[in-house]
């Protein structure tokens, strides 16, 4: 006999899920068509039927801590087949958004990221920050050179006579902004993940979804390694029927981020180790990779936006538009910056670059709080599913 579960419905949570695009959460009558329709749901305790009843009961504890919500790729087959007009796909997406907020620290920031009213702040703070830094780069170059000389480091990576972003905005400032930011993001994620893994394991044990009693982190990492090809190949995503076409754009975006990450890494290395500042030649193979990735990012995110605009059945909420907007803006401003530079349009280049930085800031700084956090949670949950023999 399993332990008795004291159900304590949370009316606030129900309202939250409704607000996040899961407003059909109460339409379910537990026929389990969704679990049958789902191409990737495991046989043992399949989702999303059990998530739907828990959602309609407002059982926050059973959903937020549930690894299964991350196994769902929101392909929409369940929503398509539901005889009661419920949209389990959207409900699970809403629960995931709630889970991201729940695991993120600080909470206030997490709430702000998901609140359209706070958008001016999210954009405004980096805008002011970069404006200040741009001013310093352009107007206070001498002061900075002196300060840097104290440490025996060259201030400027700027070029004379060519258009270079570094003329407008110091490479040091870029990296001194983003490197610590990345560090903070990693720490936030690590803190969140520790709780997250404990929670999903506890939930899996309670719901009888695993044969593992404790978490062995070494095996978990091994499972992660095994999961990576599945993720890269979008194997799960490709099993969807209803929204099959969504896998390709998503893959484009994912691979372009990977590409851009590699490119950024190489140039970072080139700049600080070989002391060779950009802009680099368009003939450079690394540059090719960067350009291909940039184009893929624009096309991929553009297609995603288009599919959301076209698909009236799928619910798209602020959380979706925010992240898609940021990604698309990031790609477009990046590419345009380069084009403007090559077209010798100095101020256009700088302004576009400025916008590009704001987009990057939004993506990076708010990564643990935005929908983009699925990158971490879904990967972890999939690795855990692999580890825990979830079948």
């Amino acid at each position, binding site marked *: 006999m399993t332990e008795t*579960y004291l*159900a304590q*419905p949370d009316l606030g949570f129900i309202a939250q899920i409704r607000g996040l695009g899961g407003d059909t959460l*109460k*339409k379910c009558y537990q026929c389990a068509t969704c679990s049958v329709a789902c191409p990737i749901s495991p046989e043992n*305790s399949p989702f999303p039927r*059990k998530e739907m009843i828990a959602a*309609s009961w*407002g059982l926050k504890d059973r959903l937020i801590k549930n690894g299964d919500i991350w196994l769902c790729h929101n392909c929409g087959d369940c929503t398509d087949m539901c005889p009661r007009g419920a949209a389990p796909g959207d409900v699970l997406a809403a629960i995931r958004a709630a889970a991201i907020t729940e695991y993120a620290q600080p909470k206030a920031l997490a709430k702000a990221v998901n609140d359209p009213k706070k958008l001016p702040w999210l954009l405004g703070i980096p805008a002011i920050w970069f404006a200040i830094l741009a001013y310093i780069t352009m107007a206070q170059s001498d002061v900075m050179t002196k300060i840097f000389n104290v440490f025996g480091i060259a201030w400027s990576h700027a070029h004379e006579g060519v258009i270079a972003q570094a003329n407008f905005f110091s490479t040091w400032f870029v990296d001194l902004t983003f490197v610590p930011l990345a560090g903070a993001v990693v720490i936030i994620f690590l803190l969140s993940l520790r709780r997250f893994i404990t929670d999903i394991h506890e939930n899996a044990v309670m719901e009888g979804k695993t044969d593992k009693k404790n978490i062995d982190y070494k095996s978990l990492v091994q499972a992660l390694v095994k999961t990576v090809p599945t993720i890269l190949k979008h194997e799960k995503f490709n099993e969807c029927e209803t929204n099959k076409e969504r896998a390709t754009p998503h893959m484009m975006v994912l691979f372009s981020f990977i590409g851009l990450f590699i490119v950024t890494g190489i140039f970072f290395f080139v700049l600080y180790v070989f002391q060779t500042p950009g802009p680099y030649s368009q003939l450079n193979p690394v540059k090719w990779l960067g350009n291909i990735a940039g184009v893929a990012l624009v096309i991929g995110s553009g297609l995603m936006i288009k599919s959301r605009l076209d698909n009236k059945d799928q619910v798209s909420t602020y959380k979706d538009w925010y992240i898609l907007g940021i990604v698309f803006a990031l790609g477009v401003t990046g590419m345009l910056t380069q084009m403007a530079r090559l077209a010798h349009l100095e101020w256009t280049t700088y302004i576009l670059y400025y916008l590009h930085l704001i987009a990057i800031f939004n993506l990076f700084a708010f990564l643990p709080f935005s929908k983009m956090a699925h990158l971490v949670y879904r990967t972890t949950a999939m690795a855990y599913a692999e580890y825990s023999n979830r079948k």
Partner: protein
Amino acid sequence: MDKKYGVYICTGCGIGDTLDMEDLVEIPEEEGLNCTTHPFLCSKEGVALIQKDVDDGKVNAMVIGACSRRVNFDVFRFDNCIVERVNLREGVVWPHSRETYPALTEEQKDDEEHFDRIQMKAEDYIRMGMIRLEKVKLPTPYLPESFSKKILVLGGGVTGMAAALDAAKTGYDVTIVEKTDALGGYAAKLRSQMPVSAPFETLQAPVADKLIQEIQGYPNIDVRTGCEVARIAGQPGEFTVTFKKPGERIPFDVPFPLPEEMLVDETGKELDPEAAHAKFLEYNEGRKDILNLDPDGELYGAVILAAGWRPADLSKMGIDHLGFDLPDVVSNHEFEQIAAKGKIVRPSDGKPAKNVVFIQSPGKDEDDADFDYCGSVTSQVALKQARYVTEDYTDGKAFVIYQHMRTPGLQEYFYKSMQQEDGVFMTKGSVTEVKTQGNGLEVTAVNTLLGENLALKADMVVVAGGMVPVTKDDPVVNLAYRQGPGFRDNDIFGQYADSNYICFPYETQRTGIYAAGAIRRAMTIEESIEDASGAALKAIQCVESANRGMSVHPRSGDMTFPEFFFQRCTQCKRCTVECPFGALDDDAKGTPKANPTRCRRCGTCMGACPERIISFADYTIDSIGSQIKAVKVPSEDDFDEPPFRFLALICENDAFPALDMVGLNRIDYSPDVRFIPVRCLGSVNTIWIKDALAQGMDGVILIGCKHGDDYQCHFVKGSELAEVRVKKIGDALSSLALEEERVAFVEVAIDEYDKLPKIINDFVEEVDALGPNPFKGF
């Protein structure tokens, strides 16, 4: 009536192709009857041909050998004529083809080796039809001496008021009798009722007040509150009703029949009728016998029984695990009372009850049964009461734990809207315990949709009690009938006042008494109003049939009624006792008194009577007996190996249509069986079986409707009685050295036509194995 006979045989639909028409026509012609054949008898020309003979005064009693009497009955209808339809099509040529039974050559016809089994069947049927014409007569309707079309409604709740309004709107005078001092019934005490109109999402004010107001606008509705029925005597069309104040004791209070143990003397011997009657009067001291009509009684034509329900007493249901002794565990009825007073508060301390658990079934993980006397209405009431909780408190939470959530029809929208409420939580589950936990209650359940053992905290628990029909406690109708004041076999219907829920809604086991609303089954206000219309229409049908001497149902329009040859009555009371509808009242001596308008013409009395003194104009012991005798039983004098001959007495309600379907589907079965449709197996008198065997028939099979819990018998008890009688006849057979297996009793449902051929063939084979009837040829 001076009968002028004629025989008409249709040769269409394969009849002429299969049968030797010359030989067939010889049968009536040998008897000196004119026989006409026509290739298309049901055509205009064919019918005109018969009509001309009728108009010319040549024919007024005719055999029509064509299709089953279940088809073209409107075509072959000739006023003031006796029409006997001989089923040559569905009964002979359709099931039995020439491919299976080749026609005989001229040489074969004359030898003693070959015989044509199809032709033999057809010829027997023509003979049987002809003899029946001779034995039956046209009915003269029975008309009561005094007659009233007034309709009496018992119960002033929503159902009673709605029924009264419906009847009044069609112009009938109605009297509503209400025991309490005001109209309105239970509905008047509700906070809200379930939605009755689109979009079926919001609760509405109870409809009772509206109905009370509407009734005031009808002068032909006479409302009597603080009043009940002491007795209803007589029969439909002339019910003599005595009213009284509730609790009053008057001489015209209805008497109760003697309990069975009082019907015997000290030695265990059955009392003779007069002694029994004396004991009956003693037992009912102070009350007049049923046959004493109240001179001050009022005359009514029909009665609508809308006496409703009472809340089930949950303390007696063995549900201690649900904590019914705790103050904050209440029934749905008690919860409604709390809700009607204002906001939902706990009975124990008057504090707001914001977390309420509704328990819909006894649980304990034993089975998934609901509480007794529950229905879809109970599910809907739980939803409605859950709405009270969220209505009263924005942070209110209502939990519904059910085994069945039934919201039929458009009430599904109500369910959906309740599902949408953030504060309403539903799961299937089996409640194991309700106990005190801190300041509140804790409910535990297993097998829930949430996957495991579930616990809930509650301020209050509501248990879904059922709606007990008042007929469970009390006869209510107080009929001055010999069989007793109430309905006799209500245990088949879980004490609801009903006679056959599926086939004959509103009809009780007493003709002229029509049940509506919660007395018939647990139902909603909306359903009760609809029910009321049905019962009102039935009551109108009843008075409008009784006044023309017609049966109301199921043999609507039948103008025959049981006639008694009293000189030979032995006062055995079997007819009075066995009548499924209590139509007969015997007097002090035990002589039956027929009440023709109570009668449904099933003939159960005719089947019961050992003296065979009961008959109907067109259905008598002799008419069927003669048909049986008209069957030619081939013996060794005729053939080297004569074919066996079987009789099937088949119920015309379900089994006979099923047999027609066998023919329609061209499925073969033994052509050696002769079928005679009977009104009900209850009307089968065992003399017919004895006659059949005595004349050498090899076996007799009775085919009727199912009886028992899920009975389909149109007359409730007919097939059950027939089975008992067949069992009894077995002893008589063995004394004649006949095997019991020669008489069989089977039940089929109307849709089981596919099983019928096998049933018939199995019986034929079984008798075949026994060998021929030793009485054959005597």
